[in-house]
């Protein structure tokens, strides 16, 4: 029961999902609808687990007076505030003018966007401290990165004004993107696709069981 049923479920669901690509006839045309709905619903329930775990960890931190336990309180409070407001506001929680959308727009959004923006600084610092032309591979990576960065902003063409129009940086960047970049990207893509197909196959056939907890 503990191992066989999950394997059976995965197998049947996986095979049906593959078959519905080839078989347009009912019930396969319908299965897709059911499965996708169930998928969304299960996902929504699963986040309860995550949230409860977050609360548990934070609460343990507060009770145990571990370092930074004050921030754990902030986590709990901000979580509760967001959830309470979200529940209170009902289905229309997302509409303009609700407290939830206010929190989203002026608290969540700036925090999330600035987190993204921090990456700009880290990218620069990584360029200075970590990106070295150590060997041919790294040199190629750097040179390509270089040409793309120059070619994708107007200043690139201004710097290379002395070159013929078709050899200015913007054209060079377009060339790299269209040909060698596409070739490399495609090799990676095909490789990944093969890997995904084989992993999926193993999972569907129950050969791969890691996701159900460890080896055999």
């Amino acid at each position, binding site marked *: 029961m503990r191992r066989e049923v999950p394997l059976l479920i995965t197998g049947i669901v996986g095979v049906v999902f593959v078959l519905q690509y080839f078989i347009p006839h009912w019930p396969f045309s319908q299965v897709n609808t059911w499965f996708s709905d169930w998928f969304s619903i299960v996902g929504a329930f699963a986040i309860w687990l995550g949230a409860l775990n977050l609360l548990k960890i934070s609460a343990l931190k507060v009770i145990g007076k571990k370092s930074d336990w004050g921030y754990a309180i902030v986590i709990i409070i901000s979580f509760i505030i967001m959830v309470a407001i979200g529940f209170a506001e009902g289905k229309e929680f997302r509409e303009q003018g609700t407290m939830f959308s206010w929190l989203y727009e002026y608290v969540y959004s700036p925090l999330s966007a600035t987190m993204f923006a921090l990456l700009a600084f880290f990218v620069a610092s990584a360029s200075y401290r970590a990106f070295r032309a150590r060997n041919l591979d790294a040199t190629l990576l750097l040179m390509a990165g270089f040409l793309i960065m120059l070619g994708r902003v107007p200043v690139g063409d201004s710097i290379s004004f002395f070159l013929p129009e078709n050899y200015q940086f913007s054209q060079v960047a377009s060339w790299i993107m269209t040909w060698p970049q596409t070739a490399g990207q495609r090799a990676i893509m095909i490789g990944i696709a093969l890997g995904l197909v084989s992993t999926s196959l193993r999972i569907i056939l129950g*050969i791969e069981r890691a996701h159900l907890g*460890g080896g055999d």
Partner: protein
Amino acid sequence: MNLQLVIRSRLFVGLAQVCFFLFLLVNLGPLAFAQDEPVPTQLVDSTPLNPPTNIEVADTPNDAGGSITIRWTEPIPPEGTAIKGYYILRAEAVGNEQGQFDVVGETSTGSSELLDGNVVDTLNYYYRVAVIYSATGVNGLEVEALAESGISRMVSSSAQWFDWRRINVFVGVIFLCGFILYYISRAKAGKKLFIRKIAGLEAVDEAVGRATEMGKKIYFIPGTQDMDNVQTIAGVTILGRVAEVAATYDTYLEVPVSRSLVLVTAKEIVKEAYSKVGRPDAFHEDQVHYLTDDQFGYAAGIDGMVVREKPATIFFMGAFYAESLILAETGNSIGAIQIAGTAMPSQLPFFVAACDYTLIGEELFAASAYLAREPKLLGSLKGQDVGKAIILFSIVIGVLLETFGVWRFSSLFGVLD
């Protein structure tokens, strides 16, 4: 006839079908349905207007029903007029009689085919096609006139049990899966399969060893995607191995995760790894813990933890998005050994730059096979390699054939064009 031949001959039947539908689809005009305005009927003058001819109606093949394809031959417009488009009219069959004809579709000039997707499988229908001619009248204004075709035969739609356009995908999937399964069975039978070395993986023991020497923690970040992502699954497979090594060396392994499903799985895997090396007592429930589902909330959380606790070794194995740089750069700044592996092409450059070892793309999937040294994983890696060999071979042959204009080899790989 052996099985392979059967499959091959079916492949060619399928190919012929694929080509046919290619033709079909290329000629598809933009579709529009049921217009409110009535069909204009006035005539320009007494010039005879040719109606569309050869109205062919048929159930649209390879679909789930509910659709009929109508085809016709374009009439030759009389001098001074041009074809502006067509109206498709449909009537339900009532017994053996036709009901009222209504406009169900409209196409622009140049098309001679339309797909009516608003039909019910259980009913029978009749169709007519009306051509819209336009001409410039005496007063300089545009005038339109219609010429209706005869009535088509009775037709109904139905669903099919196989989508023949996808026969090549079907054959491909069967072959690839066949190879993989064949090699898995070979590996299980004890046949030794060669896999080339993967640099990043050789370093796992060394990295864990260093953390032990320094008396510091190891972090394992299984990516920010859910268990439904195969990369995450490969990541947690590697986690199993890392946990075993960590348990053996008695080094504290911490696994912060961002998805509740990953939490569930990772916890089980670490627990099992500890038992496997005989140290179930060393496992703590909170070794694997959840931060938040949000990618940046998660990155921020880990960032803080890394700066505060300064782990000696950090593993990044799984699917990563933008957070990869924050994570890897912060790890770099505290001087941790970093081993990364992801199949996210957009994040790989930063891992290559900021980490000591990086598993590129498929190497991540090869990694779980390589680490576990399990026959099933090695076997499937081998199966994929056969797939790759076929692709390599196809590219050489195909490019030659096509360059010299012998045959459109690439059409074998087309997916609904």
